[in-house]
């Protein structure tokens, strides 16, 4: 199958694009040009791979979750251990890539939005590594939920801006980051944390995160001598999922399953399942599926996991949904909490609440499949940051 996206205008089918104010257009065109210049440059690849290996700790292990597999009694479950990366999640793959690119472009300052704080920490970390000024935009509500990550960012030398507009979560942090960028566009590089935003961000974040799927493909070949039957990953904006899926897109036998956050249920008004329950629209520089009302106003998203609490999704996922190449399902807060506890007890791995959504889908799917089938699951991050949220949900007072 041929799959060449985005097209030269930055579109994935009818999604994606560059829906931004004129002030930012030249910066995006400059970024596209800079990225096109480095993406096939062996020196840049080498530098990127050097830091992934020696700083991030890649390749991350592909771990056969034997006890979980036995417990569920169906398909074999392999976990791609992004939780073991430096800073504890897949986010750092992308921030290393983008900050190396920012350096090539001569930018000295970086900004980023963050929801759970993982992308903020990953950006602040790499900014510290290269001695760059760093400012992070985070919703007031998320600052409350993720106090530990806020302190980590400050220790790393970043300035954290509290965003109070709208719902005071990831969407509003992105609005404020865009407002800051429009004001300081000449000397500032915006490190977007997911496969959303204006072109070329969805493409370059996907490319930097594709190391997840590329490694897993090789590792699974070594372990099982074959491709997985399905690749499963959670989706907020969708960067760990895109990084997991992309190297398998042309392998038609591999089911690609994205797991959205159903919050209290997709039939309630408290969820974050943009593909399962949203409609096409334009926000944050791209056309994609959005949670919105009849009048095109963006609805509030809800998920117990701050990293999935976003009313949109990357445009390439919207496209994969429409062409039927990937399937999108959703998992509720309660199901994710149950999966969180199960993986912790059975495998001794405390997953991030985001990743627990993928595990919850595996718990549903694996028992329905024969034992010779193989599931590849992206364990996108570790759960240390979520301990307080989980304790709250379990009515435990720490």
């Amino acid at each position, binding site marked *: 199958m041929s799959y060449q996206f985005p097209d030269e*205008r930055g579109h994935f089918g009818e999604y994606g*694009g*560059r*829906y*931004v*104010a*004129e*002030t*930012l*257009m*030249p*910066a995006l065109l400059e970024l596209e040009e800079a990225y096109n210049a480095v993406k096939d440059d062996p020196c840049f690849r080498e530098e990127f791979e050097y830091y992934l290996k020696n700083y991030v700790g890649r390749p991350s292990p592909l771990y056969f979750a034997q006890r979980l597999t036995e417990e569920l009694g169906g398909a074999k479950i392999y976990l791609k251990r992004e939780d073991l990366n430096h800073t504890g999640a897949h986010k750092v793959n992308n921030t290393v890539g983008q900050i190396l690119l920012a350096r090539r472009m001569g930018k000295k300052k970086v900004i980023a939005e963050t929801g759970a704080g993982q992308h903020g920490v990953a950006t602040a970390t790499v900014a510290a590594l290269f001695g760059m000024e760093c400012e992070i935009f985070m919703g007031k509500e998320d600052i409350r939920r993720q106090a530990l990550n806020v302190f980590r960012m400050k220790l790393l030398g970043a300035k954290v801006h509290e965003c109070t*507009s*709208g719902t005071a979560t990831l*969407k*509003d942090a992105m*609005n404020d980051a*865009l*407002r800051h960028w*429009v*004001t*300081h*566009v*000449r000397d500032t590089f915006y490190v977007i944390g997911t496969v959303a935003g204006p072109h070329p961000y969805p493409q370059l974040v996907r490319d930097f995160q594709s190391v997840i799927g590329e490694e897993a493909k090789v590792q699974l070949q070594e372990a099982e001598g074959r491709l997985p039957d399905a690749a499963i990953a959670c989706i907020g904006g969708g960067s760990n999922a895109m990084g997991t899926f992309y190297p398998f897109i042309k392998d038609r036998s591999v089911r690609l399953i994205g797991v959205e956050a159903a919050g209290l249920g997709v039939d309630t008004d408290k969820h974050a399942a943009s593909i399962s329950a949203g*409609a*096409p*629209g*334009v*926000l*944050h*520089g791209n*056309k994609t599926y*959005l949670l*919105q009302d*009849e*009048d*095109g*106003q*963006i609805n509030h998203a809800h998920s117990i996991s701050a990293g999935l609490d976003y009313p949109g999704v990357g445009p390439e996922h919207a496209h994969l949904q429409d062409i039927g190449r990937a399937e999108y399902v959703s998992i509720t807060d309660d199901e994710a909490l149950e999966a969180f506890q199960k993986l912790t007890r059975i495998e001794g791995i405390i997953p991030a609440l985001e990743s627990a959504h993928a595990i919850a889908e595996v718990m549903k799917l694996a028992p329905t499949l024969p034992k010779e089938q193989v599931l590849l699951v992206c364990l996108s991050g570790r759960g240390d940051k979520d301990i307080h949220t989980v304790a709250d949900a379990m009515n435990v007072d720490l």
Partner: protein
Amino acid sequence: MTRIETTFAALKKKQETALIPFLTAGDPDITTTAKLIRTLAENGADLIELGVPFSDPMADGPTIQAASERALAAGTTVEKVLQLVAEVRTDCQVPLVLMGYYNPVFRYGVERFATAAAAAGVDGLLLVDLPPEEAGEISGVLKKAGIAMITLLAPTTPPERMQRLAAAAEGYLYYVSMTGVTGTQKITPDDIRAAVENIQGMTEVPVGVGFGITTAEDAKAVGEFADGVVVGSALVKIIADNAGSDQLLPRVATFITELKQGLLA
């Protein structure tokens, strides 16, 4: 000629600069907005930019963000904004340009919107997050409906791109006076002058300047060289401060009169 063209042509003959106030439709409510539009038109506004509120106004500073939130809380929708325009049009012929973000228009349906907006009496549309690269899906239907697509130019726009956008402009060009969001910084008219005169050399279409013009003094300084000055946040702030008071319309009338006098002097 369209209402926008007629207005600028008449001003040019008198060697006057267009005064273009911006206000958010539905702030504090739709009925008041209708009164405000008439007050503005009667006291010196040559063209009015009417903001269509959006939940995520990424190019706006705190003043217009808050106005959008108030308008949405008051139940403002695209449909109601179009009804408002139709109602105002019964006795007021000031050119009206709807300004906002793409999603509410996209969701309404691009063709349905163009037809309804033209029928209501909308003259132009300015969508902050729809650059020419993405405007193909709407520009054709707007042209057919006789609605001008207003293009933004920014201080960061490179010369070659500026030339291209200016050549394709309709209605008027909107030059964003600074890199930033609306209403947050003081402008430096001398820097803007060079850019605006440069653009004027590229096109026959009038050039308006906005973002950051807050006082009669600013308006006068920019009016020296621009074909139009846009005043947004400063007016929105007066509306916010006087909403619900019987002083609202008189205060807005005084403000707009002073701005116009600054431009005439």
